């Protein structure tokens, strides 16, 4: 039996005041991804199956490397924001929901760093 009042239980559990920033970031990254994905797609698609040396030569070109790095940076932010909404809309069990939201908040930042590191390593010829 709790003697806490309903008001005391509700206080501090309102909006996180983060919604507008989320909404704006989702759209800004979407707009940035229009040119970025278009510039990323062709060199990437033609590099598939072209062999180790050819791929490394392509991404030692600073333009291709920078486009790939910027694409990863923006794309993983965009998809982290998007999947967060999908989890918030469809996953209702408190434990699973919290677990997925925490995983989502961390894992895509990790993939972005891995991708950027890989492209940078190729670009610098290491």
């Amino acid at each position, binding site marked *: 039996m709790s003697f806490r009042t309903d008001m005391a239980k509700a206080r501090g559990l309102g909006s996180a005041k983060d919604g507008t920033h989320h909404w704006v970031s989702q759209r800004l990254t979407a707009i940035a991804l229009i040119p970025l994905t278009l510039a990323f797609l062709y060199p990437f698609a033609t590099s598939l199956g072209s062999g180790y040396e050819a791929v490394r030569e392509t991404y030692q070109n600073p333009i291709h490397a920078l486009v790939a790095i910027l694409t990863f940076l923006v794309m993983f932010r965009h998809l982290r924001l998007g999947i967060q909404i*999908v989890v918030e809309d469809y996953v209702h069990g408190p434990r699973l929901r919290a677990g997925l939201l925490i995983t989502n908040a961390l894992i895509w930042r990790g993939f972005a760093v891995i*991708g950027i590191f890989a492209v940078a390593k190729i670009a610098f010829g290491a």
Partner: protein
Amino acid sequence: MADGKQVERPLSPHITIYRPQLTSMLSIVHRITGVGLALGAVLIVWWFLAAATSPAYFAYVDGLLTSVIGLLILVGSLWAFWYHFFNGIRHLRWDAGKGLGIGESARSGWRVVAFSLVFTAASIWLVTGGSLGA
């Protein structure tokens, strides 16, 4: 209300009783393609990591992605990309307050479907130089 009893209010019709319609189907496909593309993004990062690791590891990962199953996944991702791309632009237009009418949002929806298919075919043709699967 002050007596603490639950008030029996009418509920608005729940989503499951609605007939599926173009706009709602396109909306859920936007989410599905978005989640699918996240997995495609992981494959792409894996491929770059392999190219940054060693010739042998790259040959392994590149071989997986250009196998029949790998290419099916990539072509599926390519369609998902074009769909999400054009439907994303449709959403940005809506966010700008344009194209929100019932008729025009259905028309722009069909345009998204058509563009996604045409651009998938055109980009496969462009990348393979017309020699499909080679």
